[in-house]
């Protein structure tokens, strides 16, 4: 039962850490060009879902189909080559690599040297703050600058789909706004986005569709606009 419009499809995905189950039959779909957000309370399994997609958490059951190819048993490097980049929670820039080195780590799987150099330049024009700090250790950047770098680093892989994990976490409100603006812009330029975000209202305002996760599976899905008005979301977070 192929659904041709899906770029990424998760079917009955199960995964866990040792004895601890994290995903218990997750089903999810992202169409090309969409911005989909995945929301839910802490510990619901959102991060695990992204880690499973990018190959860091091998699923025990279920399928992950990306661009009509099953990738649930594929190594992270191959998944990245296939076109999925993952911008991890907490930014995770390499603190003792320079900004430029961090960017080239983003293009690690690419072989087209001259195109990479061009992309570094392009990213630097796009994020002038990174151009300024090019030779600085990434660990010396502010939180907001590190977030820019993490996003830019993910873009360096020239992905078709970017996974964002809690891009607003620990950032000042003004930085949060500009981060979301950048993500919206990335989508406008044609890259598909799947985003996990605790700031549910902000995420819903910018997304096309959204899924609400609870204990490892989807409990609610729909157009972001509808969910924004739905009291279920509040209940999922606050248990009211």
């Amino acid at each position, binding site marked *: 039962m192929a659904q041709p419009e899906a770029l990424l499809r998760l079917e009955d995905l199960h995964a866990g850490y040792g004895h601890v189950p994290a995903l218990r039959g997750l089903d999810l779909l992202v169409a090309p060009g969409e911005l989909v957000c995945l929301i839910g309370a802490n510990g619901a399994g959102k991060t695990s879902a992204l880690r499973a997609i*990018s190959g*860091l958490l091998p699923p025990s059951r279920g399928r992950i189909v990306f661009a009509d190819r099953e990738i649930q048993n594929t*190594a*992270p*490097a191959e998944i*990245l*080559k296939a076109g999925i980049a*993952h911008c*991890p929670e*907490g930014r*995770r820039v*390499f*603190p*003792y*690599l320079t900004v430029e*080195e961090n960017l*080239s*780590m*983003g293009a*690690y*799987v690419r072989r087209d040297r001259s195109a990479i150099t061009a992309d570094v330049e392009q990213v630097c024009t796009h994020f002038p703050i990174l151009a300024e700090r090019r030779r600085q250790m990434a*660990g010396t950047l502010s939180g907001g600058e590190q977030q820019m770098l993490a996003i830019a*680093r993910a873009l360096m*892989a020239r992905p078709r789909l970017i996974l964002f994990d809690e891009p607003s976490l620990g950032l000042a409100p003004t930085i949060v706004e500009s981060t979301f603006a950048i993500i919206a812009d990335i989508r406008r330029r044609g890259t598909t986005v799947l985003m996990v975000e605790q700031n549910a209202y902000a995420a819903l305002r910018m997304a096309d569709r959204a899924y609400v996760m609870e204990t490892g599976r989807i409990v609610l899905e729909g157009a972001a606009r509808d969910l924004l008005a739905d009291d279920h979301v509040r209940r999922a977070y606050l248990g009211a």
Partner: protein
Amino acid sequence: MDQLLQHLVNGLVLGGTYALLGIGLTLIFGLMNVVNFAHGEFYTLGAYVAFAGIALAGLNFNLAILAAIVVGAALGWLCEVTLLRPLRNESIDTTMLVMIGVWIAMQNGELLVWGGVAKSIPHPYPTAPLVMGPVAIAPLRIIVLVLAVGLIASSWLLIHQTKLGRAMRATFQDRDTAALMGVSIGRVHAATFAFGSALASAAGALLGPVFLAYPSMGDLASLKAFSVVILGGLGNLTGATVGGLLLGIAEELGAGYISSGYRDAVGFVIIILVLLLRPSGLFARQERIG
């Protein structure tokens, strides 16, 4: 004063090779979290490869050192792939025990092949020392220091200027995220172990002709490498370089001014004191975040 200068110069020669040993071990320990007790055996291996190359196969000095590097790297790679890779998710003690086994096996293997009698490694340089003011130094020692500095510089280039070096540093700082960038952790580990072993082997090939080659020479070399790593901090290249030079000089001074019998105690004392007073190393900076 004249004596002091002489000690400093001798210490520098010794320290250069200690730095090589230390750089190799600090990468292996820091990046792979493997306490490599066999490190000194790669040093011994290097000395014997140099001996075999020069005395038996008639290679020239530089080629023999190159051969030691190649053999060290190959055996290091083999060691990682066959012994350490299957144990990557085991505790640090498990891999440590395996490396102790490798150490014993390699040392006694060398004993069986070469016998217990120390071998002197021939070299083409004149034995008469060059006298420069108050300092007398054998030409071989100058060559050894130059080559050691060259190797340290190339390690530095490899780590800081190549894609592999970048991947190694990234893996060291954040293994998960490095994997996310598509770095194959297994390949980085194998390369690191091969590289570290090659450096140890090079150190043995360099210092072997200065002293002698004998099967248990690696024991002290391991100890010195650990002292250097502890002085310099895990995974810290600059720390290992400076630590190696410091240890070499400290040993020369200790042997010269205290008692030559306690020369090797310097390394032990450094390990104990640094671990107790500043466990992260004298030149430590927080390399790992999170």
